[in-house]
């Protein structure tokens, strides 16, 4: 039983396996906005060969009681196969990908490349005055890299949002 007097917020990474059908994303997003839940990030893509199933990863926050509600509400959507609270159910991996554009010349440029190397970011586009790095990792690692690029010449960022999976042999569908 969740304790209703416990008002501490926690983050939860929730994985949802759904039928890959028209309107499913609107259904999930509408559920969150209609009931006033937070979405920190949301990603979705088909994950099986026949493209019949999609996997949604949602990062949300709330009290234990609210997060239990979010999972129960997701689970009763007709096209939802399975809902898992990766945060609660054991060790898991959470990763994000980012494309980040840095503009600058000379000293700035070499500093950006040096730091990218340290963070294992890849150069995927370069001109004489700009660089685009591709980088994957946990959200805080991406945040740290962004903070370092800001004084150097940060121009633009595109992030995917979090995808997550449980560690070990278990899977979402038993």
């Amino acid at each position, binding site marked *: *039983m969740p*304790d209703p007097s416990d008002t501490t917020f926690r983050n939860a990474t929730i994985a949802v396996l759904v039928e890959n059908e028209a*309107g499913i994303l609107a259904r999930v997003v509408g559920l969150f906005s*209609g009931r006033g839940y937070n979405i920190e990030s949301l990603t979705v893509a088909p994950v099986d060969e026949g493209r019949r199933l999609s996997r949604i990863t949602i990062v949300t926050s709330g009290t234990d009681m609210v997060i*239990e509600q979010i999972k129960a509400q997701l689970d009763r959507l007709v*096209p939802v196969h399975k809902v898992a609270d990766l945060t609660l159910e054991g060790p898991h991996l959470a990763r994000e990908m980012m494309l980040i554009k840095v503009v600058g010349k000379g000293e700035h440029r070499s500093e950006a490349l040096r730091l990218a190397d340290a963070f294992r970011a890849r150069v995927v586009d370069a001109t004489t005055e700009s660089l685009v790095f591709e980088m994957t990792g946990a959200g805080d690692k991406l945040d740290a890299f962004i903070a370092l690029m800001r004084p150097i010449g940060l121009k633009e960022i595109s992030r995917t949002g979090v995808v997550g999976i449980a560690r070990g042999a278990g899977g979402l569908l038993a």
Partner: protein
Amino acid sequence: MSATLQTQTEARTMTGAEIVLQALKENGVEVIFGYPGGAVLPLYDALFQQNAIRHILVRHEQAAVHAAEGYARSTGKVGCVLVTSGPGATNAVTGLVDALLDSVPVVCLTGQVPTHLIGNDAFQEADTTGITRPATKHNYLVKDIGKLAATVHEAFYVARAGRPGPVVIDLPKDILIGKGTYQEAPQAPHRSYRPQTEPEAGAIREAVALLKGAKRPILYSGGGVINAGPEASRLLTEFVRMTGMPCTNTLMGLGACPASDPQFLGMLGMHGTYEANLAMHGCDVMLNIGARFDDRVTGRLNAFSPASKKIHADIDPSSINKNVPVDVAIVGDAGRVLQALIEAWKEDDAAQDKAALAAWWRQIDAWRAKQCLGYVQQGSIIKPQHAVRRLYEMTRELGRDTYITTEVGQHQMWAAQYFGFEKPNRWMTSGGLGTMGYGLPSAMGVQIAHPDALVIDIAGEASILMNIQEMGTLAQYRLPVKIFILNNEYMGMVRQWQELLHGSRYSESYSAALPDFVKLAESFHAHGIRVTRAEDLDAGIREMLAHPGPVIADIAVAKDENCFPMIPSGAAHNEMILGAGQSGGVAGVTDEGKVLV
């Protein structure tokens, strides 16, 4: 389904409209409530050429959904609706949300512009699936005739499985005209939606152990028991009697426990009885079956039944621990849960504390002695409570199977308080959404399903005008619905709140320029009665009940009567107001309380 139908379906290709009708038939549809329009002409053409499904032409699409709700709630079947695209669909939305909040199984077919025009702002185009997504349990847009039959089958499954609800199927006109082959309903279980109906034995044993050890138990049941079918109500009554514990029902759950049962405490909640609310407040073990700890029931949450262990059985896991955290959660169908509880109760060797239970009943009887529903009928002005009470007594004397629907407001609460229900499925009211205008169309649906029954819409003069056009439907189909208006010339519940919470400033709540309801009835080929004096009330009711056709009985009642008992918004169960003499207590409503509706 007959053998000839089957061979037909296997053999030939059909139009989309024919496929839809065939699928409706396979899902047991006998009646469809609807209104035609351009996008659904192919379906109406197909309806015209068959006799298996009867179409009832309503006067407004909202009424079609409410009629289907009345049909569904009084029969346990899925109600079926057919409306056109654009305004047809948007008019149906209020009915859909009503069915969603009260968990009523309805399948609503909406017409749509042809697929190649979708998104073009075509004539009578609306984004129906977008609009109805949060208004339904689920919805579909059919873009491939190959999936048409399967979609209809799935819609009926979804509408009735688990916690029931409304489902929309949006049907573009080219799909209805196109040709395809029919597929029968699949035998395989649904790919993703398989609600748990069978309760877990461990949770049942835990619940029984708590209940056996209880000194002050109470059973609180809601619409989930009604939705689980009449057998669930029978089991509920059996369990109440074998355990000796008191039972209260929510507004949606009335009829599950017979009103005449000595262990029944009446309705609980904002306008519930004193004994039911104080028993909820003071109990040590609460068993909730098929109710959802709604804000009308709990009052102020942090003061709700503070000393009790709570057991909650619900078919919808998202209802459990939503508002009130519980100690034992049971997911399952109410009927299956009750069956399991009865068996586990018999198997459990522990003895009940009979002395404690007897003391608990003495306490409850002391609360009952307050006679919280008492009223004094004096003089010629008719008390609305008296009007409902006499209606109840006179229909009971008549002995006919009686179904009551209501609109929304004071009259609805008086009906819930003063009309006793002995059986489930006899009480149709808009509980969750509180839709004024629900009662008349809902009564039409009930009367269609039960042509020989007595169907009465207990109404207010403001609510009835919200769907008054349905008088035309009553006339067309000779539906002998009785409309019993408690006419106080006010939107009474609004007026009551303005009196109690807004310094008696009756802003816009007076029913000005009312029609002559007798002439209105007559213009719609019905019988009209007006009663203004208490001494004429019985004769008026007798005349209404004796008339073979539809009747409007316009009963002029006391204008300033308030509905009590009342738990003011933001207050706890033990802070309820019993009557006018005590309404000084309302001055204590906090600002937080005033925010609540």
